[in-house]
């Protein structure tokens, strides 16, 4: 009975994190962007800094009519948001937040493979949406999404493999147990490549060519309204949480901290994740969108060679010095 209770409790916690953290990131994005660009936006709802505006937005989304275009492939059109969102919920299950087996939703033997595999599935949602909308802009968005995924999946996998080589395991918990502070400079190239490739996979600026709102009107999501559109937005923010959490776990030592690691491991994890999420938002405000051909060139001629160099470096250090 205690086993069942334990599993239920873990699932509940992960679900609550899944529901709240993306919203927190979304609200932070509103506020950080507002202050960085000197346009404060709605400041009255709820009192302090207009915090309740997010809830008002949610209510607005829920009230809107759910429109399916006449020419669309109805079932796939309606299924797409779920396919885009659910993988991130599954990934959250495997990300350890503190030391020991008590601080992770489910300990997985092949954790790195699991998270990367399931994250890749989420992109299918965008592809389904882009195709099923019966809209040229949506199809263009879907095409660009697919091209981007194919280009950036490889450097992401290669850098994750570099960390797995360093730790000698593909389990996320195992990688954290093996972590030493000097991995930080050792794997820094891999960390940057992983983070940038992850940003591209989430289609966040400056890699948001597939959704480019001023050119192809939000790409695959052009025809979506109301709650389904909100689900796509939620998927994007859940993706930010997952990417930052993963970068923290793989490259920044997760629950390891310079001091006070006893019992406070989860604080370190959350702190690092939050800082990375801030960087994601910062990049959106400060970098212009890259062109489609620049995107492809960036991945194939810069990120992949860098990732391969990182793997070579990891191998040499592992064999010669350890």
């Amino acid at each position, binding site marked *: 009975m205690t086993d069942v209770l334990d599993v239920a409790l873990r699932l509940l916690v992960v679900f609550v994190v899944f529901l709240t953290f993306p919203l927190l990131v979304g609200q932070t994005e509103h506020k950080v962007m507002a202050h960085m660009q000197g346009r404060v936006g709605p400041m009255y709802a709820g009192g302090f800094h207009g915090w309740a505006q997010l809830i008002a937005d949610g209510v607005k989304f829920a009230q809107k009519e759910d429109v399916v275009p006449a020419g669309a492939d109805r079932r796939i059109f309606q299924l797409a948001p779920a396919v885009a969102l659910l993988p991130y919920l599954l990934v959250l299950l495997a990300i350890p937040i503190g030391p020991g087996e008590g601080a992770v939703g489910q300990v997985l*033997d092949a954790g790195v*493979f*699991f998270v*990367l595999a399931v994250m890749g599935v989420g992109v*299918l949602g965008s592809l*389904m949406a882009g*195709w099923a909308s019966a809209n040229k802009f949506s199809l263009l968005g879907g*095409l660009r999404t697919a091209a981007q995924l194919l280009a950036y999946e490889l450097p992401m996998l290669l850098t994750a493999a570099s960390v797995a080589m360093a730790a000698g395991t593909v389990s996320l918990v195992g990688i954290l147990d093996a972590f030493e502070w000097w991995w930080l400079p050792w794997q820094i190239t891999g960390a940057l490549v992983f983070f940038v490739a992850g940003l591209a996979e989430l289609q966040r600026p400056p890699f948001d060519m597939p959704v480019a709102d001023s050119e192809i009107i939000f790409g695959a999501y052009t025809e979506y309204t109301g709650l389904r559109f909100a689900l796509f937005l939620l998927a994007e923010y859940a993706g930010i949480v997952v990417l930052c959490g993963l970068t923290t776990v793989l490259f920044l030592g997760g629950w390891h901290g310079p001091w006070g690691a006893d019992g406070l491991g989860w604080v370190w994890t959350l702190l690092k994740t939050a800082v990375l999420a801030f960087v994601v938002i910062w990049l959106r405000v400060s970098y212009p969108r890259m062109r489609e051909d620049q995107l492809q060139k960036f991945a194939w001629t810069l990120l992949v060679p860098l990732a391969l160099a990182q793997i070579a470096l990891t191998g040499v250090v592992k064999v010669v010095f350890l």
Partner: protein
Amino acid sequence: MSTAATAGALTAGTLRRAAESPGFLSPTGVEITFLLVGLVTLGAAVVTVTTRQLVHAALWLVVALGGLAIEYLLLTAEFIAWVQVLIYVGSVVVLLLFGLMLTRAPIGRSPDADSGNRPVALAVAVVAAGALVWVVVDAFRTTWIDLDGAPSGTTEVTGASLFQHWVLPFEALSVLLLAALVGAIVLSRKANAGSEPGASGEPGAPGVKDTAPPGTATGVTRARRDQEGDR
């Protein structure tokens, strides 16, 4: 008389083996789940090859491949299961969808996508399935996975056997993949050089006009050409 005797002996043998093996006559939850997921996978696979909507076929393929991954999980082969999702669902199907969208992916039925080879395909499929079922059942009839014992499909076990006992096939496969890679580059170079002077459209993307403005194809090919030039 003799046939009845052999049949009786066979039945007795099967029954004895069934009684010896754990849980054949009283299926456990895992076995029932395995069977149900198998049925879903089979159904999705059949729909994949029979549906007349191209993109639906690709999406049903996702269901079939995902079902296979779950079957691997139930057989305790965790590593293989996640690799299956990563490679097939995450990359191969995305590539497939990309190709479909780039060429022709109409919403609704596409009756012209039928090659008229249904009977032959059915015959090949039945023969292949029959041979596989026969051989696999015959080989692993009495093999059971001990769920409570040491894990048998973890990354560590898989890696050790792959790189200790199966290194040669593994390396041979990688040489094969390398050859495919080089071949792909050679082919794409040739096509590129042939259509260089004054070519308005790329011959590789004929059906684009059905679904997308012509700008799509030229944009993508221009990007590709830029890459080629850099290489």
